[in-house]
């Protein structure tokens, strides 16, 4: 056991000293790993936050029921009565065309161009409208409620405000798939890069490996330092990625804070996402290990063939 531990420690020490000797190239490889891990993580953070935001918005659903421009007061009262009886409706309120017109004029006062345009309209173009909140927020219930409201005589159009949120949610599902594939592709790229780096190291140390075999080194003795090299590239690369993610989310947060202040929201990007960081680092380590394992296994097979040429006839 202590022999095994000693061997592992020696291998790690050896790899660290080799990395220190080639500091710049080691740094480059870790940086590549870091950037490659950072990219999908940033996409993930963005999409994750967007999806949280839309979930939140879908809970505030409202159906807008715009009436025909020429409806009479009687029809409005009939619709009012119908809505009051409908069990799927939690609450509703009527905004008449005059109220809406007044609101519009109030709101446009601050911008002269818009108020000029409104004044030029002359007569009120707005319809009477009911704003309805349903009891259920399930998309199917909302859709059927919307359909039933649409069929009421005198109704011009029933608008479900969640439509765009639903579209966004679909887009987010799509983006998540996209991120998955980007992640897989980048993982393959990393596998190749780390594998190739380790292969180059094996080539520069081919003499040592060959001699070590001849004087009784086991395959695991040969393999261990290279596996640690892969693992360390992964670890340092993963740490780089975490640092980059932290920096970039922090920079984004400045702008997002400004933006959400405009919407009087306290929405921020979560700066410290422990499980994401853990996932990034362990994925990087795993990829590093796998890349070097593949490279070293392949190289060892060819070197063990080569070492048979050791004595000359």
């Amino acid at each position: 056991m202590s022999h095994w531990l000693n061997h592992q420690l020696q291998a790690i020490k050896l790899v660290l000293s080799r990395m220190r000797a080639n500091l710049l190239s080691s740094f480059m490889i870790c940086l590549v790993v870091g950037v490659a891990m950072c990219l999908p993580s940033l996409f993930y953070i963005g999409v994750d936050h967007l999806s949280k935001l839309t979930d939140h918005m879908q809970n505030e659903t409202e159906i807008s029921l715009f009436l025909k421009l020429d409806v009479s007061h009687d029809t409005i009262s009939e619709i009012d009565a119908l809505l009051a009886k409908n069990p799927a409706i939690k609450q509703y309120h009527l905004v008449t065309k005059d109220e809406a017109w007044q609101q519009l004029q109030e709101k446009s006062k601050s911008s002269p161009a818009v108020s000029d345009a409104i004044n030029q309209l002359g007569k009120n173009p707005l319809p009477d409208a009911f704003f309805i909140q349903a009891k259920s927020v399930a998309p199917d219930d909302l859709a059927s409620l919307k359909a039933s409201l649409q069929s009421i005589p005198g109704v011009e159009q029933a608008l479900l405000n969640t439509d765009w949120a639903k579209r966004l949610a679909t887009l987010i599902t799509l983006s998540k798939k996209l991120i998955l594939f980007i992640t897989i592709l980048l993982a393959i790229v990393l596998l190749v890069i780390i594998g190739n780096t380790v292969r180059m190291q094996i080539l520069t140390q081919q003499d040592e490996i060959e001699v070590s075999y001849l004087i009784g080194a086991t395959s695991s003795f040969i393999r261990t330092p290279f596996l640690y090299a892969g693992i360390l590239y992964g670890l340092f690369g993963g740490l780089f990625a975490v640092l980059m993610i932290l920096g970039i989310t922090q920079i984004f947060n400045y702008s997002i804070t400004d933006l959400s202040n405009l919407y009087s929201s306290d929405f921020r990007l979560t700066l410290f996402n422990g499980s994401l960081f853990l996932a990034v680092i362990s994925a990087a380590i795993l990829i590093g290990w796998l890349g070097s394992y593949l490279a070293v296994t392949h190289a060892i097979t060819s070197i063990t063939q080569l070492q048979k040429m050791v004595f000359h006839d």
Partner: protein
Amino acid sequence: MIKFDQVTKRYPGSDEVLKNVNLHIEAGEFVFVTGHSGAGKSTLLKLIAAIERPTSGTVLIANQNVSQLKSSAIPFLRRRFGLIFQDHKLLYDRNCFENVILPLRINGVSGNEAAKRVRAALDKVGLLHKEKAMPITLSGGEQQRLAIARAVVSRPSILIADEPTGNLDASYAADIMAIFYAFNQVGVTVIMATHDALGMSATQNRVLHLDQGKLTQHTPTLTDPKQDIGQSESNIEKIAS
């Protein structure tokens, strides 16, 4: 110690390199392997060092049948040997000390104990004062001595040397031979391949002569009139036993 029984070796796509070889090397012997290029010397050494396995027949090393040994057991068998190559196989990216310590690392020896043994090995071959030197700065003879130090640092019971004096001039070669004899004196089995008939004609050691894959001569060289008759008799006894 080392026993070949009806050993034949054929490489894929070639004729038999070794044919029906029988031999027995006792612990503490000093044996030469001679023969022309292509006679099978290197194959014989590879079989002894468990680098190759026989096509047929059995190779016993320290009572272990190499053919039946698992690949994972081979490295541990190899640690019983010190191997010395014609082209030294030194590592030119590190100094003498680091070269010699390699087998100890593989054996899991480290720290002061390792340093002590490295210096002892360097001392035996007369290179203690060069422990910090890079191998490329050494002469051919010194490089071969460094290779010997590396071969003996883990205290193997068998030294296998492939033409260790092949590329050296006479005085260096004599130095090297003296070192091998010194190890043999303290009980190390030495098996040395050479085509240098002069280098061994003056010795009283057993000679395994290979001719086209056959072990044709299994006796001490009697061509040398100065050869001590009593010594050759004892060698014949050894062969007979």
